[in-house]
Structure formats: C-alpha cells, structure tokens
C-alpha cells in the first residue's frame, strides 16, 4: 500500500510538461531561482529545477543517457563544464547572439558551454602585517619568505585544481609541481574549511595570506554577521600577476545537454541569462563579475579597482585538471 502511495506521489511530481526547460543546476537555488522566475514571467516558459553538486549531476546525466529529462546543465566552475563535455552529455550551440556577448576565452571553442559570471582567485592579505608591495605573483607564494604564513583550502576543491591546472597549461607539470611543493611548505596549517574560513584565519592572525575567490570576500564584506564583516575589513584583496598573465579567472556557466528535448527554450534561456538584465542580477547576487563588459559590476567589486585578468582559454583548465590533481597529491597538498 505504501508502495502504491509512493507511486502516486512520483506521478504527481516527476514528469515535467513538455515545453518547460528542465535544469540540472550546481548553482544553488537561492542564487538562480529568482532569475529563472523572471525568465518565466517574461516568456511564459516554465522552468523546472534540480540542484546538486556538479559532478553528481553530470554522473546522473551520463547514466540517464538519451532519455534524461534535463535540457540545461548549470555548473559553477569551468573544470566541471569541461568534464561534462568530455562525458559526452552536452551538445554544441551556435548562437550568434551569445557569441557576440561572451568573450571567446570564457566559452567553449566549439560552443559546448558558456561562462555566465566571472570570479578571480586572488590573494587576501592581512592589512596590518603585510605590505602589499611585497606581494607580486602566484609563483612568489612558494618563496620561503612566506613560510608558515599561507592559508588555503583542500586540494579537493575545484577552484584550487583549476588554478593549478592553469599553471600546468602554461609552465608544464614539473615546474608546477615544484611550485606546489614550495607553496605547501609555506602552509600555516593543514588545509581545512572553505574560502571564508581562510579569510577569517588571516583576520584572526593564524596566517598572513589566504587564497580565495573574490565573491567569498565580497560576501563577507556584505555579511549579516558582524564578526564576518569585521574580519573582512581587516584584510584586503591583491590581484596577482598584474605585470604578467593577469589574475586567475574562472566562470560559472551553462550548457545545453545532449538529451535536451527543448533545445529552443534552453537556448532562449541561455540568451536571457547572458542578457543585460540577468547579467546585472546574476553577478550581483553572489558578488561576481558580469561576463559582459557593458554591464557594471557591483559597487563592492568596483571598489577594489580595475585589474588585469588572465586571458587563458578556460577550457585549458579542464584539459589539465587530472594532471593538476595528481601533482597536488604528490606534493602533499591535502
């Protein structure tokens, strides 16, 4: 009887109507749902949403195969978008509207995925104890002068993997491994917690430098929690490699799935998310940089000044991800 009950339940909530856009999203509900609702208001196209971790969603897409109900995959890192492409669960989209808006390095060269918001992985330093003139490049973080002074999260974290992958792409495995080994030697503690915790640890004096994504710092500056705001005010952002390749960039983005049955609606949604209105909201809600240069970043982000962004094609980060993970294992980055 209970089984029957659950069968009835499944019938009620599993089968989305046909002309809807069905999304598997690694961007979490509160960071995506409001703009999807706006899309539905404007176009009348209903959107159904499952959120989750990117890797698991890609696994689900892979196993569901051609019958997967998902039309669109949203991921929060280029490494994952690349994995999805490699897994064969995406399809290429040719939309001149989108291609005109999104700079080439922030989308897949074959049109399999598109970056929709930008973040930089930067150095956060203690304003009281670090002279920003001593900071320069990512490479410099391996210098013994930072011994016992750096906090960064686990190498299981995709943002760290992507940063290392970009170096592998530029300098090769051996040089990058030497750099990671030096960096690990400078850790003030075993990697733990998220980016916000690294920043808090700098403010608390456990380390002098942290490596963090910009939006975490932005989130702390705007936090409802007074302690977090205080901590954020004790530190500042440094954009590395300004005389070289520029600060490391990453995207959150979206892709149309190979199994998509509502391709037109999915592309329509992609174009909407790349549009001016959505870009302003999409980036601002999480303190990210818009992917298009004609939309202004939020006030907090602007207050950090302009900076030179690395223009490496982001798919390189995906290509070198596995090498990056292995060399981080070897170098002892937990």
């Amino acid at each position, binding site marked *: 009887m209970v089984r029957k009950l659950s069968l009835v339940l499944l019938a009620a909530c599993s089968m989305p109507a046909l002309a809807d856009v069905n999304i598997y999203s690694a961007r979490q509900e509160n960071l995506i749902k409001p703009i999807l609702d706006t899309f539905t208001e404007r176009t009348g196209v209903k959107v159904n949403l499952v959120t989750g971790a990117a890797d*698991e969603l890609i696994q689900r897409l892979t196993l569901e195969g051609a*019958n997967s109900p998902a039309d669109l995959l949203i991921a929060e890192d280029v490494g994952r978008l690349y994995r999805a492409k490699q897994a064969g669960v995406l399809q290429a989209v040719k939309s001149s509207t989108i291609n005109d808006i999104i700079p080439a390095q922030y989308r897949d060269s074959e049109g399999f995925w598109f970056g929709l918001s930008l973040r930089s992985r930067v150095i956060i330093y203690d304003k009281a104890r670090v002279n920003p003139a001593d900071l320069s490049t990512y490479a410099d973080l391996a210098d013994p002068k930072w011994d016992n002074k750096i906090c960064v999260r686990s190498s299981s974290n995709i943002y760290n993997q992507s940063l290392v992958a970009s170096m592998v792409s530029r300098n090769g495995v051996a040089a990058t491994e030497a750099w990671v080994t030096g960096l690990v030697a400078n850790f003030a503690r075993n990697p733990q917690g998220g980016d916000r915790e690294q920043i808090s640890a700098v403010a608390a004096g456990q380390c002098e430098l942290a490596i963090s994504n910009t939006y975490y710092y932005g989130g702390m500056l705007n936090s409802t929690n007074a302690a977090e705001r205080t901590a954020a005010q004790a530190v500042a952002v440094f954009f590395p490699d300004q005389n070289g390749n520029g600060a490391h960039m990453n995207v959150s983005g979206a892709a149309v799935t190979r199994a998509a049955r509502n391709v037109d609606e999915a592309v329509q949604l992609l174009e909407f998310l790349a549009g001016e209105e959505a870009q302003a909201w999409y980036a601002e809600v999480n303190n990210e940089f818009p992917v298009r240069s004609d939309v202004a970043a939020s006030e907090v982000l602007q207050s950090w000044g302009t900076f030179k962004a690395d223009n490496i094609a982001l798919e390189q980060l995906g290509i070198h991800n596995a090498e990056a993970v292995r060399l981080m294992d070897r170098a002892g980055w937990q």
Partner: protein
Amino acid sequence: MDKAPEGALSSLKTGFSNRLPTLGILLLCLLLSVPVLTILASVTNSSDGVWQHLYDTVLGDYVTHSLTLLVGVGLMVLVLGIGPAWLVTMTRFPGSRILEWALVLPLAMPAYIIAYTYTGMLDVGGPLQLWIRETFELRFGEYWFPQIRSLNGAVVMLSLVLYPYVYLLSRMAFIEQSVCVLEVSRTLGATPFQAFTRVAIPLARPAIIAGLSLVLMETLADYGTVQYFGISAFTTGIFRTWFGLGSITAAAQLAAVLMIFILFLILAEHWSRQKARYHHTSNKYTRLPQIELTGWKRAGAMTYCILPVLLGFVIPFVQLSMWAVDTWHLIDKESFLTLFFNSLELASITAVIALLLGLFITYSKRLRPTLATRGMVRILGLGYAIPGTVIAVGVLIPFAWFDNTVDAWMREHFDIATGLLLSGTLVAVVFAYLVRFLPVSLNTLDAGLGKIKPTMDDVGRSMGLKPLQILRRVHVPIMRGSLLTASLLVFVDVLKELPATLILRPFNFNTLAIRTYELANQERLAEASSTALMIVLAGIIPVIILSQTISRSRPGHDART
C-alpha cells in the same frame, strides 16, 4: 556453524516456512542488494594505474585516518553510551528521569550540522577565540586552544551524535534483563560494579555490538564532517578518486574495500561469540530495584550523564537558535512548510517500509537460517557503511538501465516512448534510503528477535499457530519496543540524510536537509541554521517517543514486588 536452537524449532522450519513468501523476500533482497553488489563487482575491473598512484601518495593517509576515526569514535561511544544507560536504568539521582530520554536527543542532530556549529563557535575566527584574544590582548599562537577542525575534532563530533545508538540499545538490553541474574551475582559476592561489568555487560553484548556496529558503519560512511574538517579519509578519498582522478572504477573499488573491511569486522565478532546465544535469561520479572545514589556518587553520576546531552545537544541547539533568530528576516518562509512536509513524508514512508521488510527478512532468517538467508542479511547490512553518494550511483545505474531498456523495447514494439519511469522519481529516492538504512532496521529487529527463546515458537506451534500467526501474535507483541525503535531510527536517519536525496530527487523537490546544505555550502552557516533547527526539532519527537517506549518495554514493568 549454527547449531544452537535445535529441537522443535527445526520441525517448524521445514514444515511451515514454505508458507512464508520466502521467494518474494529473497527477490526483494536481491533487488535491494544490487547497489552493494554493483560496487563489490567493481573489484574485478582494471583501474589503469590509479591504484599505483593512490598507493604512492594518499592511500596510507586514507587508511590510517579512517582507522583512527573508527577506534576513537568506537571507544568514545562505548564510554558515552553504556555507562549512562546503566546509571539511569539501575540508579536514581536528581534529574535521572529526564536524562533517561534526554540522553537520546543528540540522535536528532546530524553530524555535519554539529560540526558546522562547533566550528562556528570554536574556530580561530569564532566568537570564543575572538573573546580570548580581545580580553587578554593575546595574538593567535600565544595561547593554547584545541583545534576543532582536526582528526580528534572529528572523533568528538561524530561520537557526540552517534553514542545514542549504543545508549539506546544497551539501555534496552539492561531493562529487559531479569533482576534474578543480577541478584544471583550479588549473592555470589559480586559488588554492584562487578554485577555491571561481569554480568550485565556480557549479557547485553549483542545489543551493545549492534549499536556499536551502527556507529562504526555510520562513521565510515560519513562524508560531511570529514570533508568539512579537511581530513583525507576513505570517504573523501572515494570522491577525490572518482571526480578528481576521473576513475569511477577505482572509486568503486575503494568503496568495496570499505565494505569488505566491515564484513570482516562483523564476521570476526560473530566468530568470537561462537556458539553463545543470548536469550532472555528468565521469565521472572520484578520491578527494577533502582538504587538511590548519594554524596559524590550522585554528583559523579549526574555529571557523567549530563555531559553527553550538554555537548551533543544543548550547546549546539542553543547556538543554532541564536543564529536562527539573527537571520530569521532573511529566510524564505514560504517554502518552509513544504520543505518540512517533504522531509516528513519521505521519512515516514521509508520507516514503514523498512520496518515491514526488516521484520519479514529477520523472521525468515530465524525460520530458515540457511546460508542464503544469512548471507543475504549480511550483504544488505553493508549498505549502512557506504557513503550515500556511492549508494545513489549504485541506484542510478540499475534504475537508468531498466528505464532505458523498457523505453527501447516499447519504442521498438509499440512505437511508444516511455522515457524514464523510475529514475528521477521519489521511488528511486526511497529505494536508496532502504539500501542505506534497512541495516538499521535489520540490526535492531535481529537483536530483538534473537532474545526471544526458540521455545516460544514451539509453544505457538504446539497451539496450532502458523508461522505468520506466531510472528503476529507472539513475537510482535513481545518485541514491540524493537519494532518501534527500528522504525523511529530509520525515520530520524532519513530526516538527516543528504547525499542520496540530493542526487536522486525529482525536479522542484527539496527537503530540509537540502536547503541546509545549500546555505552551509555557500559558507552561510548562520542562514542555514533555521532549517537545521527544523531537522533537529522534527527528530526530537520521535526520539522522545523512542525513549518512552523503551522505558515501558520492560516485560512486567507494572509488576509490584
């Protein structure tokens, strides 16, 4: 191997068991063990040198860290579980009546939530250390403070929320023990403490082991806490291998190693128990004589019993409440009720199914303890030790295969596309829960059923009852406590479950655990506190019912001496 309960029961086995829907149960078990078997089968695949890489780099860490967790949590839950269970059962001291049920409360607290909460309080940037630095004008490193995010921290966090399993099951055993044996031991010159260590604990061994094995399996399967603390243990290693190194085969093999290890532990325990059987020791029940404690014994007992509740429940609960008040204006209240009911619905459906299935499976095993039924129970029992995500994928694979095969067949023969029938539905979600949590039900019911003497079956049989009637009219009334315990434990576990729900759920369907995770994952702990608190509150009521039932579960608890 199994020679013990002979005699009339064996005639019952051969004569009547075929009336039980044995075949159906066997098929169902087989179905439920598909995810586990899928993972075990991976051992034979080649993983292209990934193992060499793991062996050269991180495998040593995974093994030592996971073993440390196991040993640490194992010892700590025994200390936190057994002692208080004995004290509140056998003695009286101020507050003992309240502590009887309060000691179970941490069960309602998911491990990842208690970890978030204590980290928020005790981390370098947290209020406590901030206060120390400001008050004493110290800088970081100039004072000693335990590091919460460490292996030891993880041991403490997990122990604080898992000890209730040991507490519950050992208390149930103590309550059900006849006073006679204890009195006999006292007449033979044993002190009360000796009666406890040399009679009560050995008699309660199956229950304690059952509780402990739940704890150890939960520890091995924990991902949220170790991941948050940045510990490279087996579970975090599985994910890293799977996604970071891109080898689902090697990841499945790591999970298989984990299962084989658990299987080995369980078999080792059985082997050491050998032929001993633990049934009710006597049918004579009198009211338990509770000793009124005085002086330092009273103070000691109070502290010993209050501490686990304080650390495992009260402190994190208060902290969560404070955060919830702070962030209440930011919370999306509209969806709150929906989340609440979704969680309750899933938990109740799963609890009922797990109870019925568990009862039939353990009873079939009692009737026919063949290699097949016992092996099946063992395999099913492993699900609890597997991380939820791995189980979810173990469910996705056969379900997606089934759906796609049906779809292809229907297209070919009838030109109808059926699409995905089961994948992405609540059926898949509940199925995954069953794979994961049926062991809880099986363990509890097996222990409960094992305590009923085989002669009870014989009596029922001699009165002309059929096996199912014996189950319904003899066993079920006797083991009412175990039945309730089994279903409520599953209920609370489902409330807390996160990873399988996350991967398998349908569109536009969320639970309290998912909302909590999403906010916590964005490192917005304070905002995650409202839903976290709801999970805890939803779990408290069943947890209290549980304690009450167990208090009343003593046969003849109304008897007057």
